């Protein structure tokens, strides 16, 4: 038997808090509860088994433009009263902000998502352990030079509810599972590392063979890699790398950054900011997206937003706060607890050609298969970026020798303009952005 949806109980708790609002106060309560399992296998044995239960409540109170928040890791009634009292006390120290306020229901229809799967709950512990063991076994069988660092199964189930004095009442639950494996490849001279993963709403959706294959491939393909010479090149970003860049670009197309003078695209609305090949959407309503959701962190309907259309900047994602301050409608991208706005499920609209077809048309270039230190190397305010990378050289249309220990650098502004092709190989990844092969001209490569 699977358990019933108890998120309604959480909504009752949230509503109880909201009912305690004093006249002139806006109150928001966000209540959540989760259960997760993590199993790590090493050399055919369970190395650790973690069973985790958590619950929390976050309360935000706004009065006269001042905001106070408080949170607590338990749902005990006595503690909740203290959390509300603390949030009230805290708002006294904030400064009035004329735009402060909770989200208001905006009538935008919720696109229902199937985020819960009963069969995952019914999966036995034994089956979960076997999956992690099988992944380790398949990975080791993939290549004699491979060792497995750890093979992991994890799953998580969460339920959450949000209620506000402005009339928001939402509750729901979600679960999913994840397999991952870390690999080491040795050739006698050196060691390289790789990883593979699979995600699903239930264990039958986990593509375990692919996870094993990719973990072997990622580690072995870098064996014997050398450091390339410094020069300017055309790069092809592997879908997984593109997705990591997209997450950063998404962070700059954010109404909160714009109103606070921190977005490099602040004055560019309606202007060409990217190659006309680029159309960038944030679409959490697409059920294929790993981060698909029906509501945002403020309880409003999640929705499809086109941020860049054919290279022209068309929209910033907004929280209710940034939207109010910019005099625009919200886009359903508020973060939990009023902590800003964020993209939920970014995607570049794909082109037509496969990565192999793209590579065949490049005389001199490099296929970037992994990046390291992207977050420390990108300044999303100035746009400067520089990242460690590894990949394969492209010579006369074919993939050649592996290279590593070099950086690629440009600015985000230039890189978007220099996009020369978008691949047709859309990949849904376990992150808030999807991947696709991307060709970018004139990137500085620093190596030897």
């Amino acid at each position, binding site marked *: 038997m699977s358990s019933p949806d108890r998120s309604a109980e959480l909504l009752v708790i949230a509503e109880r808090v909201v009912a305690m609002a004093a006249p002139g106060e806006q109150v928001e309560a966000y209540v959540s509860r989760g259960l997760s399992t993590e199993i790590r296998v090493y050399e055919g044995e369970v190395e650790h*088994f973690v069973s985790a239960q958590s619950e929390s409540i976050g309360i935000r109170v706004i009065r006269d433009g001042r905001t106070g928040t408080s949170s607590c890791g338990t749902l005990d009634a006595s503690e909740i009263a203290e959390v509300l009292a603390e*949030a009230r006390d805290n708002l006294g120290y904030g400064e009035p902000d004329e735009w402060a306020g909770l989200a208001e229901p905006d009538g935008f229809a919720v696109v229902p998502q199937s985020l819960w799967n009963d069969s995952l709950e019914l999966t036995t512990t034994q089956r979960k352990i076997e999956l992690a063991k099988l992944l380790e076994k398949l990975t080791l069988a993939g290549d004699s030079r491979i060792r497995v660092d750890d093979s992991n199964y994890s799953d998580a189930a969460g339920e959450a509810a949000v209620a506000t004095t402005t009339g928001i009442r939402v509750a729901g639950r979600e679960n999913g599972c994840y397999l991952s494996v870390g690999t080491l490849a040795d050739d006698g001279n050196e060691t390289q590392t790789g990883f593979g993963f699979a995600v699903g709403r239930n264990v039958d959706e986990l593509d375990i063979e692919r996870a094993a294959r990719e973990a072997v491939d990622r580690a072995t393909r870098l064996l014997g890699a050398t450091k390339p010479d410094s020069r300017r090149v055309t790069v092809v970003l592997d879908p997984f790398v593109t997705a990591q860049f997209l997450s950063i670009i998404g962070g700059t197309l954010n109404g909160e950054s714009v109103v606070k003078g921190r977005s490099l695209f602040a004055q560019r609305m309606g202007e060409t900011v990217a190659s006309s090949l680029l159309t960038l959407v944030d679409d959490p309503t697409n059920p294929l997206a790993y981060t698909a959701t029906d509501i945002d962190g403020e309880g409003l309907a999640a929705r499809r937003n086109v941020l860049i259309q054919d290279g022209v900047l068309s929209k910033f994602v907004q929280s209710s706060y940034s939207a109010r301050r910019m005099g625009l409608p919200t886009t359903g991208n508020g973060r939990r607890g009023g902590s800003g706005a964020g993209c939920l499920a970014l995607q570049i609209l794909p082109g037509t050609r496969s990565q192999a077809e793209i590579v065949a048309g490049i005389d001199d270039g490099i296929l970037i298969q992994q990046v390291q230190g992207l977050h420390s*190397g990108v300044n999303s305010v100035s746009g400067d970026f*520089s990242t460690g990378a590894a990949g394969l050289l492209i010579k006369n249309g074919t993939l050649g020798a592996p290279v590593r220990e070099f950086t690629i650098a440009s600015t985000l502004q230039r890189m978007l303009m220099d996009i020369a092709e978008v691949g047709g190989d859309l990949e849904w990844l376990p992150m808030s952005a999807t991947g696709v092969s991307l060709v970018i001209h004139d990137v*500085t490569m*620093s190596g030897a």
Partner: protein
Amino acid sequence: MIDNDILERVLAEGLRTGADFAEVFASDWRGTGVGLDDGKIEQLSTGRNRGAGIRVIAGETTGFAHTADLSEAGLMAAARVAAEAARQGGGGIKVVALTTQAARIVSPIKIDPSTIGKAAKVDLLRRVDDAARSAGGAITQVSAGYSDGRTRIVIANSDGLVAHDERVRTLLRVSAVANGDAGMQTGFDSLGHTMGFELFDKVQVEDVARAAAGRALTKLKARPAPSGSLPVVIKAGSGGVLFHEACGHGLEADLVAKGASVYRGKVGELVASPLVTLVDDGTMTHEWGAIAIDDEGHPSQYNVLIENGILTDYMWDYLRARKEGRPQSGNGRRQSYKDLPMVRMTNTYVLNGEENPADIIKDTANGVYVAHLGGGSVNTATGDFVFGMTEAYLIENGEITEPLREGNLIGNGPQVLRDIDRLGNDFAMGNPGTCGKDGQGVPVGDGQPTLRVKSMTIGGTAS
């Protein structure tokens, strides 16, 4: 927080399915955070988080469960889940008798931040905002955060240990944006110690604000960083994170045991320039990574990892030390009661050399002077690492000249350690850091004197 007789019964429950080790880690955290942005105190938040994690080890298998319910019933339920997860068959009754360890204090606290009014914390940030904005007309935005936290901890295990600790950390972060003809630039600085509110009697928050603003302003005039390999001089206190990444992680016994470290099997060998002596020191009073006991109850230690270039030892937690039949080194740490402990660093630093730092710069014909490093990461199996340079200058003919825009610095840990050819006598600790490993973040410190690396790859865009 929890009485010894309850801890004894919970540990016995953990051992009921035949396990050979059980542990309770309970913590109660309370903290305050204040954020300032866009000239306004945005919100003041307070939080509380308490709970216990129960670890049961049977042979090679670890079972772990955690609960926010610190009652005996809640702890017993978690112990049963952990024991079941680690079940090895067998079973039996074991009795646990606990001996409370004497309290140990590494960072004495004078003023518990929870006794300070919220208004005083808000006032610190207003001072920060004023100071950063007065640093120059080009400063267009300032954000700053203050946070403090006090965690009470109880650790008990089936070897009879019960240890208590109380940890206080106080942190200030400042980020400034400057706007010039060539676009926006950012500057960041932070201050964090295992100290109470007396921290602000010793350090003027205006200095932290001006440092952040100064970095942003300097970069307005910056030119693109070079691209390619050059000598790099790293200012004292700004590059300890390089050692944390470039070799510290590779000296963690859990990674070594799995062969995921380039330093496996290298104890007793020359792994660095003979100039380098590297230490991990949890006892360094008031530093961000200081701890009286680690999160397994073991007292923190001063551990020499590399002495005059020779690898002397790795860092150890309970599990790895037990497997090797050797003592722990006080490096078993975890993010919270919800997490399993792992081998982690504390304060990792390079001891002083003998040279005058000015001579090191004077003797460098052409290169890069790094005055502030941002975050970084390492692949411990290959030693390849990456760092962001957040404040750097060109060195031309032995003199520091023009500021550089941001870029990454990359290299290979073992190679860089061998390539250190000059070491200054001006040791300083760096900014407070958060070290991430396997999804867990823990507070760490780092430091070094001014030093030179013969050649590193600078990932700029200038040819």
